[in-house]
């Protein structure tokens, strides 16, 4: 093997005198929480052999299609997606990957709900899921508003009354097409993607939750108190 010089930081160790630099601290944090073998594992516990665990990955796949097709729509613009056959096709691809995204996400969250997957210090995994779900609903609404057709006009005039009713109309004005488009193609996709990445990294950090029967006996039923 040809020798490549690895600096102490590249091997993860670093020099003693650098130990309190932020680079060293972040590296130590990542090395202990997400070592490469945990980030990209080859094997999973046997209880994961069920189709229900596929739905998180299916949601990610659908989200990737949403982002790619949405990117194409932004490159070409409304006249293209309304009038040309390729544009109509990409527009439909965008809509249907969104439908699949929500479909898979809901089956995923039902699965996690019925296995109480927030157990064992996984509350943040569940909560990041909740936040992505809510951000996705916002992305869905602003997407309908960005169609530039009578459907989007109808939806915005219906939505404005509800949003004004709860008092957010002055910050989030569904009749302001420019603002809605920005939310749809910039803020909300960023939020959905960034929080999903965090969500999946949290899953990798903690490992998949064991079935309720295999739960360490001390957790819920402990009578002695404290850690067993």
């Amino acid at each position: 093997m040809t020798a490549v010089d690895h600096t102490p930081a590249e091997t993860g160790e670093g020099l003693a005198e650098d130990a309190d630099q932020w680079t060293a601290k972040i590296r130590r944090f990542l090395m202990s929480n997400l070592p490469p073998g945990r980030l990209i594992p080859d094997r999973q516990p046997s209880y994961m052999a069920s189709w229900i665990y596929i739905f998180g990955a299916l949601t990610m796949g659908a989200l990737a299609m949403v982002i790619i097709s949405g990117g194409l729509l932004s490159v070409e613009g409304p006249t293209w997606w309304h009038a040309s056959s390729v544009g109509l096709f990409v527009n439909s691809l965008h809509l249907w990957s969104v439908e699949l995204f929500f479909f898979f996400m809901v089956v995923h969250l039902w699965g996690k709900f019925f296995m109480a997957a927030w157990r064992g210090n996984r509350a943040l995994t569940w909560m990041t899921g909740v936040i992505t779900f809510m951000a996705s609903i916002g992305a869905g609404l602003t997407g309908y508003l960005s169609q530039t057709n009578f459907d989007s006009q109808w939806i915005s005039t219906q939505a404005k009354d509800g949003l004004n009713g709860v008092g957010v109309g002055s910050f989030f004005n569904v009749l302001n097409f420019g603002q809605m488009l920005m939310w749809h193609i910039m803020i909300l996709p960023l939020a959905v993607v960034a929080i999903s990445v965090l969500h999946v990294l949290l899953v990798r950090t903690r490992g998949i939750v064991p079935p309720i029967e295999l739960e360490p006996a001390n957790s819920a039923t402990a009578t002695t108190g404290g850690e067993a």
Partner: protein
Amino acid sequence: MTAALAVVVAALVNITGPGHYIHWGFIQISVGNIIVISLMVVTFLAAILIPYHRKGGRS
């Protein structure tokens, strides 16, 4: 899409005209929504009930 294919698809899913709704007491839901929700329930049950076989069969 060829004209013939368009007619077939339009016959299956006709989205022109007012939507179809199911009324059941105080419950009112569009046919589209009830179809999607049922499909999600069916998919959920299938994911739980259908055994997951791994390639290579090491169990």
